[in-house]
């Protein structure tokens, strides 16, 4: 169509050039990813505003994927920031994922990244929005990181238990949260001791644990460099009936005490992530 641009006044403008496209997908339980594609300029904002506003008003864990946005104007920034405020006002969290360099530069020079953190890695983005809200909107300083490396052995499992003792005191964990943390770590590390197989020539005898303590939850990451091994594939909830076999009893318990349990293979690394409500 070769018509001139619509003259406003409530009529739907005829878009010039490629429209900005929007769709949404659930990338983890409760985590919505909004995929934007095209130019986030005044025209683009108009075409997506209804959908985007609705998502921002209803979702609590929102990842805005900017990887296919080629341009962003000040109207676009305002739309994004107002969406983030809408999510945060309800105790949720929004982050950006994967902007290309030119778009990222705009986000940084405008200071938008101070309000909405930018991630290049999807798993990190999921982990970040899983943090939930809380009163403190100063997200980076509201988190406390802890880490520990242990041998992939039963001695290592025992060391993990002692680590939980320390964390319970440092973080003033409730009895319930301490229980869930102890259980998840013991099951996950015991599982690696029993089932993971080292890659020849690679140090598969260590397990790296990382815990990020956020106001509303603990985010745990366990990494090892053994052969690819997904503990969640023993997915059926084990029960006492099959206790004599492997059965997945431990992983079943872990799933009951954690949320957002995910496994991924990242290069040579097995990465198990989960979070525990506080």
């Amino acid at each position, binding site marked *: 169509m070769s018509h001139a641009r619509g003259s406003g006044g409530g009529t739907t403008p005829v878009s010039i050039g490629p429209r900005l496209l929007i769709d949404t997908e659930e990338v983890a339980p409760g985590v919505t990813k909004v995929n934007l594609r095209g130019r986030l300029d005044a025209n683009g904002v108009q075409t997506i505003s209804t959908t985007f506003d609705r998502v921002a008003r209803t979702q609590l864990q929102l990842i805005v994927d900017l990887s296919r946005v080629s341009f962003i104007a000040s109207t676009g920034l305002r739309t994004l920031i107002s969406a983030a405020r809408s999510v945060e006002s309800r105790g949720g969290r929004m982050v950006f994922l994967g902007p290309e360099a030119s778009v990222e530069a705009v986000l940084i020079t405008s200071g938008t990244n101070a309000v909405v953190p930018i991630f290049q890695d999807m798993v990190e983005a999921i982990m970040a929005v899983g943090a939930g809200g809380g009163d403190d909107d100063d997200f980076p300083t509201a988190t406390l990181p802890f880490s520990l490396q242990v041998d992939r052995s*039963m001695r290592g*499992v*025992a060391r993990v*238990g002692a680590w939980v003792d320390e964390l319970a005191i440092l973080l003033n964990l409730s*009895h*319930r949260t301490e*229980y869930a943390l*102890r*259980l998840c770590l*013991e*099951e996950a590390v*015991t599982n690696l001791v029993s089932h993971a197989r080292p890659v020849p020539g690679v140090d598969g005898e260590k397990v790296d644990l990382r815990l990020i303590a956020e106001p509303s939850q603990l985010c745990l990451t366990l990494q090892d460099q053994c052969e690819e091994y997904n503990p969640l594939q023993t997915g059926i909830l*084990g*029960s*006492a*009936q099959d*206790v*004599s076999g492997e059965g997945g*009893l*431990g992983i*079943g*318990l872990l799933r*009951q005490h954690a949320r957002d349990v995910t496994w991924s293979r990242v290069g040579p690394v097995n990465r198990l992530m989960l979070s525990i409500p506080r």
Partner: protein
Amino acid sequence: MRMETEEVAPGVTKFNLVGRLDIGGTQEIELQFNALAGAQRKVIVDLSQVDFIASLGLRLLIVGARTVQRKGGRIVLFRPPIEVEAVLISSGTDNVVPILRHLDEAIHAVSG
């Protein structure tokens, strides 16, 4: 982790477990627990002072229970704290070994 035994009624043995049934605690009492389970026919496992259990601890209890039951004996779990009880139930352990909260009920159940 500690384990003591007491006779709470004629022929009825109560195992008093004290501590955490995590991997370390389970290993500490495993031999003693299995040996006693092999020797007794009316067993009450007192969990009131156990503040943690995960799958390794569950295995200990279930294998012990099967040992007692296979000989025609009876075994019950007694007064687990709330978090421990939740794990016993969600894992289906209570289908293998009943959970009871009163001592007279527990004695009655194992005396059959």
